[in-house]
C-alpha cells in the first residue's frame, strides 16, 4: 500500500498544542524512561518520528497515544526539550478530531473562541427553553411534586434525550475508532474469539485505570496522587451520570434526604470537587510538567466542570433549606452548564473516558494478534546488530 506523506501535518498539529516536535533528534530517551513502553508498543519516540515524517494516515491507525497517561517523565528527560509528553497529548486531541465524523471536534480544538461561543450559545438556548417550560406550567416557589417549576419527570425525559444524543455521537465515533485502528491498523484479520477473550479489559481499565497508577510509580508525587484524584473524578462523574440519568426522580425528591441515593451523590460530589480544584490549581501553578501547557479546551473543561459542581451543590443546599425560589433558579443555571458540557463530550477531551479503555482493549487484542502472527510467520529470533 502506498503511503502518502502530509508535509503540513506537523504544522497542523501545532494548533492542537504540539509545538516542539521538530526539535526531536530520535535519541529514544523518552521510550526508555516510559513505564508503559514495551516490546509491542514503543512510544513516544516512534510517534514523534511518524509525526516528523508527516504520516498522518499511519498515526490514525496507532493506539500509542491512548496508552500514554502523560506522567511527564519523558518531557522531563528529553535532552532536546521537544516535549514528547505534550506531543502525545496533542495527538490524542488530534485523534479525537479524527474519530469525530462531524468535524466539530476539530473546530473546537483549533479555535478556543468557537468552542466558547458554542458553549455559551447552547447554555443560553437551554436556559430559555427551561425558563419557558417552567413558567408555562409550573410555579417557581415549588421545587418538586405537583406544579413544580421543573418537575423530575420532565427532567428525566430531558436528561435521557440529551444522553441519547451524546450516546449516538459517541457510539459512531467509537465505531470509527474501531475501524481505523482494528481494521486498517492490523495486517491480518482479527479472529473473533480474541475480541471475546480480551473483553474484560474494557471494564477493568474503565473502572480502575490501573495503568495510570503504574505510571505514577515512577513519579515523585506523593500517594499516587494524580492517579487517585483522576480516578475519584472519573468515578464521581460516572456515579453522578447514573444518578441523574436513572434515579433523578428519587434524587430530586425532598426536602428530606434520601440516603439510599444521596450517599452516592455526596461521595461523587467530593470526588468531583476535589478533582476539579486539584486540576485547576495545578494548571494555574504549572508545578508539574504535565500541567505546564494548557490548551483552551482544557480550561473550558475544568471551569465548566467546576461550575457544574458548585451550582449543583448550591442548588442541593438551597432545596434542603427550603429556599425553593432560589433553588429553582440555581437548578436552571446548573442545567445551563450541564447541557453544553454533556453535548460537548463526544467532541473534546472528555471523550477519552470511552476511547482510552477502548484503546486498552484494542491494544490487548493487537498484542494477541501479533503473537499469533509471529507464531505463523516468524519463527526465528531477531538479532541485534
Amino acid at each position: 500500500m502506498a503511503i502518502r506523506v502530509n508535509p503540513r501535518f506537523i504544522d497542523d498539529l501545532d494548533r492542537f498544542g504540539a509545538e516542539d516536535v521538530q526539535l526531536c533528534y530520535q535519541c529514544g530517551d523518552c521510550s526508555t524512561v516510559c513505564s508503559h513502553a514495551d516490546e509491542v508498543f514503543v512510544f513516544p519516540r516512534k510517534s514523534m518520528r511518524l509525526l516528523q515524517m508527516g504520516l498522518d494516515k499511519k498515526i490514525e491507525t496507532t493506539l500509542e497515544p491512548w496508552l500514554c497517561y502523560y506522567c511527564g517523565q519523558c518531557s522531563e528527560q528529553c535532552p532536546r526539550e521537544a516535549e514528547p509528553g505534550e506531543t502525545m497529548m496533542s495527538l490524542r486531541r488530534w485523534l479525537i478530531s479524527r474519530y469525530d465524523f462531524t468535524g466539530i471536534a476539530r473546530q473546537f480544538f483549533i479555535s478556543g473562541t468557537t468552542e466558547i461561543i458554542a458553549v455559551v450559545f447552547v447554555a443560553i438556548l437551554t436556559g430559555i427553553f427551561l425558563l419557558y417550560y417552567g413558567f408555562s406550567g409550573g410555579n417557581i416557589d415549588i421545587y418538586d411534586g405537583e406544579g413544580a417549576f421543573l418537575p423530575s419527570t420532565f427532567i428525566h425525559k430531558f436528561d435521557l434525550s440529551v444522553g441519547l444524543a451524546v450516546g449516538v455521537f459517541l457510539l459512531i465515533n467509537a465505531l470509527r475508532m474501531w475501524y481505523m485502528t482494528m481494521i486498517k491498523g492490523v495486517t491480518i484479520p482479527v479472529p473473533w474469539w480474541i475480541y471475546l477473550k480480551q473483553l474484560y479489559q474494557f471494564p477493568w481499565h474503565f473502572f480502575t485505570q490501573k495503568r495510570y497508577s503504574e505510571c505514577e510509580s515512577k513519579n515523585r508525587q506523593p500517594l499516587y496522587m494524580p492517579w487517585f484524584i483522576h480516578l475519584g473524578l472519573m468515578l464521581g462523574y460516572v456515579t453522578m451520570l447514573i444518578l441523574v440519568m436513572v434515579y433523578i426522580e428519587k434524587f430530586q425528591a425532598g426536602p428530606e434526604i434520601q440516603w439510599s441515593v444521596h450517599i452516592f451523590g455526596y461521595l461523587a460530589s467530593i470526588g468531583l470537587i476535589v478533582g476539579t480544584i486539584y486540576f485547576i490549581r495545578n494548571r494555574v501553578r504549572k508545578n508539574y510538567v504535565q500541567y505546564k501547557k494548557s490548551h483552551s479546551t482544557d480550561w473550558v473543561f475544568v471551569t465548566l466542570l467546576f461550575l457544574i459542581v458548585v451550582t449543583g451543590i448550591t442548588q442541593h443546599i438551597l432545596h434542603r433549606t427550603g429556599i425553593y425560589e432560589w433553588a429553582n433558579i440555581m437548578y436552571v443555571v446548573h442545567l445551563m452548564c450541564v447541557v453544553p458540557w454533556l453535548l460537548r463530550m463526544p467532541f473534546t477531551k472528555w471523550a477519552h473516558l470511552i476511547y482510552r479503555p477502548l484503546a486498552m482493549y484494542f491494544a490487548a487484542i493487537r498484542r494477541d494478534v501479533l503473537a499469533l502472527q509471529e507464531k505463523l510467520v516468524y519463527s526465528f529470533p531477531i538479532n541485534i546488530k
Partner: protein
Amino acid sequence: MRTGVFFCQMEDSRNLNIDAIAKYSANLPEVETVQILGSKPHPDLNIVCEQIKSNNLERIVIAGDMPGYFKPVFTRAMAMAGGNTNEVRLASFLEHGARGENAMDRAKAIVACATMGVPFSLVAVPSGNPVNHATLIIGAGIAGIQSALEIANAGKQVYLVEQSGTIGGHMAMFDKTFPTLDCAACILTPRMVSVGQHDMIRLLTYSKVTAVTGKPGSYRVKIRQKARHVDIKACVACNQCTDVCPVKVKSEFDTGLSLRKAIYIPFPQAVPNAYLVDAENCTYIQSEGEKCGACQRKCPKECINLDETDQTLDIEVGNIILATGYELLDVSRIEQYGYGVYPNVLTSLEFERLTNASGMTGGRIITKTKHINKKTKDEEWIFSPEGMPPRSVAIIHCVGSRNKKYNPYCSRVCCMYSLKFAHLIKEKIPNVAVYEFYIDMRAFGKGYEEFAERIKQEGTFIVRGHSASVTMNNGQMVVRGEDIFNDRLVEFKVDMVVLAVGLIPSPGVEELSRIFGIQRDSDGWFSELDYNGSPTDTDRGGIYVAGMCQAPKDIPDTVAQASAVAAGVLRSLTSGKGIGHLSSLSLSEIEKRAKNIQTI
C-alpha cells in the same frame, strides 16, 4: 557615490543599538538613505529595487550580524535597477567582532568602512608594538607542551605555567589514542621530558597567574608559585618520604580511584620528576610544625623544607598562550545514570585510568569489590586485586552532551573514545559483551569512520538509541534502551557502565577571562577572534588560545592548533612587532584611514 545603508539585524540580543548606528551612518558623506529592515520578513525584492531607483543609489551597504544572508536579494534588486552589482557591500558586525565594551564604536567603524568601499580588515590594523621575546604559556597539557616546544625550538624563551605538580595534563592519563590505538604515553612522555630539559623553557609548576598588566608586546604577569616544599633540583625521587608519610588521600591523577600520600609524585613519569607536598593534607603543615615531619627527617638528600612559603614571581612577556584545557561535567547531577549510587558506573576518565597499564589495577579491567574500611568501618567499593572482570559492559554516549539541560554542544571526542573503549575491553577480556548506546555516530576525522567500522566488525553490539536509565535489580545492573533500528526496547544485564561524559571548560577559565580580558562564548569556552579566519587569535592582541579551552577537540586537532599558535607567536617575534589590541583603534582613526585609502 550615492550610497544606501540597509540594516538587516537578526536579533537585537547583543548590546548593539541599531538606531544609534543608523543615526551615525546617516551623517556619513555620500549616504543618501538609511533603512532599518530587521531580519523578518525577508526584505522584499521589489521594494528594495524601488528604493534604489527612487534614491538613485550607486552603492548598497547591508549592515547586520549576518548580512551575507540577505545579499542575494539586494544583488538582484541592484541588477533589476540597472546598477553595478559589485557595489553591494557587506558590513558584518559578527565577523569583525563588534561585541563587548567597544561594540558600538566597532559597529560604526564597520559601517563607515563599508560605505566608503574600503575593506574593514584593510583599515583596522592596530599599530604594532615592539615585542618582548619571551612567551608565557598557561596550561601544560599536550597543547601547551606542543606550543612550548615549537617556540623554544625556534630559540625563544618560554615560561610554561601549570597549576598542578606535573605537566602532561589529561593526555598523560590516557591509555591509547584513537583511531590508531597508539600508546598515549609513548607520544607524550618524550615531549614532556624534552620540555623539562629544554634550555629555553622555564617550567613553573604548581603555579597560577594572578594578574596581568601592560599592552600587547609587553605584558607584565604576576605568577603565584605555591610552595612545593621539595627542592626540585635536589630531589632524586627515591620514594623514601612517601614510605614514611602517614596521610592517605585520593589521588587526583587516578581520578580519586586510588590513594596517594600527602607527599607524593603524581605519576612515575612526572616532569619535573620530583615529589611535592599537598599542604592541605600534610599533618606537619596543618599543625604548624607541631606534629609529624617524618619525611623531612627521613629524606637522605635533605631537600624537603616543610616551612617553605608561597612565592610571587613577576615576569615580562610579549605573547601569552592560553591552553587551559577542560574537565568533565559533574555526572552525578544526571541522576538517571546512577553515578555515585551504583559502584560500577564509571566516567570515561575513570575508565581510562582503569584500563591504563600504569593505573590502579595495572591495566586489568575489573569491577569494584566491596571492602570494609578499617578505620571508619564503612562499606566502600574499591578496585582490589580480587576483582572479577565484567562479563558485559554498557557504554553510553552523549551523557550531558547535546542536551539542553547540560551542554547543548557536541563534545566531539566521546563517540571515538567510546569505540576505543569497546575495542580495549574486547581485547583484554575474552567473551565479553559490549553494548554501545549512541544517538548519532560522529566519526568525522581521518581514519575515524574506518575505525568505527572495525569496532562494529569486532562484534560490539552497537545500539542506535540512547539509554536514559541504569537501574539495579537484585544486585545486577540493568541498562534499558530503545533499539531504534530494530524497533524494540532492549534491556541488558551488565556488570559495568561507562558514561561518555560531556566536556566543560576547566574551572579556572572564569578567573582567567577576567584577568586577561578575554571573551567567553555562551558555553564558557574562550572566544576566538574569527572562527574561520583566525581560530587561534583572541580579541586582545598578543593573547592566543590553543586546544580544548577554545572548544572541544581531539588530540590531532589540539596539536595542530597548538602549532598554529606557535606560528602566530613566532610571526610577531621575527617581525619585531606584535599586533596590538583592536579596541585601541579609535573610531576617528579608522575613519581617517579609510578616507586615505579611498582617495588612493
